[in-house]
């Protein structure tokens, strides 16, 4: 579903991605791990169109999307839940969620979808009239996730869902994510911390210095002592 070939991207003079090769098949879960600052977030931002690559190709469902605007990529069914959540702070939880269904295809079904999201995250339902900036960190994370689920996502990309959250909240978060994965969504997940993704039946990619340097299943990487020493329990 997603093909990334020789992707280079950066900010101004700084080169971050130095030739990424990546594939995500339909129904798969792919996890990208790696140290901070090496390009994981940049990778997602380039795929979703917030950043224009300097070289390389990105194909989504066979169509090239590198250099396309983020709005049109999103309308094609690629949902990127960004790092930092970026809630619309002055708007209520409900308004935030509704905006998640903005594209005309999803807008019509928004009542149904919001019901589903409230079902998945009852806490959001309780706070539906509250302004987003009054939510706690974990609640904001769920809002961001819920917002992303308001569209029929062909591909869901999550950027460090555990970032900045207390361990208990993180566990709950990942239970939700497991539920989402179980429903058949194709998922591209970025995490710095390997420990949360051990339970996933996923393909793991290690991104270092702007390149994918190691690839394998969860068990493969668990067996790799160097990887474990560096990333487990960070």
């Amino acid at each position: 579903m997603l093909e990334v070939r020789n992707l280079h991207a950066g900010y101004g003079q700084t080169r971050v991605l130095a030739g990424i090769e990546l594939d995500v098949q339909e129904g798969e879960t792919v996890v990208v791990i790696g140290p901070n600052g090496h390009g994981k977030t940049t990778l997602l931002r380039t795929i979703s169109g917030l950043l224009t690559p300097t070289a390389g190709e990105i194909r989504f469902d066979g169509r090239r999307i590198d250099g396309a605007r983020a709005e049109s990529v999103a309308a094609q069914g690629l949902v990127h839940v960004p790092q930092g959540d970026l809630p619309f702070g002055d708007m209520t939880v409900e308004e935030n969620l509704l905006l998640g269904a903005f594209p005309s295809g999803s807008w019509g079904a928004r009542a149904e979808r919001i019901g589903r999201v409230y079902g998945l995250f009852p806490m959001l339902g309780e706070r539906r009239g509250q302004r987003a900036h009054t939510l706690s960190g974990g609640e904001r994370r769920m809002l961001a996730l819920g917002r992303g689920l308001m569209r029929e996502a062909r591909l869901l990309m999550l950027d460090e869902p555990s970032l900045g959250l207390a361990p208990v909240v993180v566990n709950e978060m990942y239970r939700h994510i497991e539920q989402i994965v179980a429903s058949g969504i194709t998922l591209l997940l970025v995490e710095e911390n390997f420990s949360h993704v051990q339970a996933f039946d996923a393909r793991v990619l290690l991104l270092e210095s702007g390149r994918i340097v190691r690839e394998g299943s969860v068990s493969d990487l668990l067996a790799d002592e160097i990887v474990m020493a560096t990333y487990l329990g960070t």
Partner: protein
Amino acid sequence: MAALIQAIVSGLVTGSIYALMTVGMTLIYGTLRTLNMAHGSMVMIGGYVSWMLFAGFGWGPLVGLVAASMVAFAFGIVIQQIAVRPLIGRTGFDFEMTAFISTFAVTIVLSNVALQIYGARNKAVPPVIRGRFHLIEGVSVSWHSMVMAAVAITMLVGLGVFLSKTRYGLAISAVAQELDAARLMGIPVGRVYNLTMAVSSALAAVAGVLLASVFFVSPVAGDLPLLKALIVAIFGGLGSIRGTILAAYVIGLLESLISLYFGVKWSLPTLFFVIMLVMLVRPTGLFGRPQEARL
């Protein structure tokens, strides 16, 4: 005492008009990070549309309101396309100052085109209803003023509903608050920009139609509204609609009271000094938030 009440009443009417005039400017700043110097021209255009329909066909202000909003709606999109959009996303210069200057250039062109077409002479437009309504002894309001206030308030309420209940209205707020997140939702930012400029310009033009019979219609009819709108917008805090509306009424009342006690001549300078003091204490206006430059 009666004079005081009279001043308060007219201050409230003025405040309503200021709110109508300025809310568009703050909306534009919120989404486009642009101080739209062509905003005053939209007021001027509203006045001219109203005058043309009246002088040409004898049609009253109601038609003028609709026509002026449509004309200004179109102008808003054009201005966005030629003066603002080309600057977005480019590096090497300060976006805000450049957009300030480009919209300033637009206003120069529009004023002088109006001058060329219509000449410098003021045109007169009659009020919606003549006559005054007497509240109590010594206090009266012209019917036209009441209509002005009513229309202004209606439009403001309408705008509020639009921004919080409709799809594109929410999209405008979204773009103003978190541009990246909005894009990731598939919100077409370019279209939102156009819509913001168009709606804001239409509102300004409506104010222009309302003001046409109070002040004359002329090529420089937009200058004072621009200045007032700038003052109100920044006092209230750029990007904050609530702040703008509150500021509009505060400034309307202030102007009225200063005129009453010190004379009309002193209202603007005093206002300026008040603003200056306020900015010392709250550099981003009453409700403004320090915005990240981002376009």
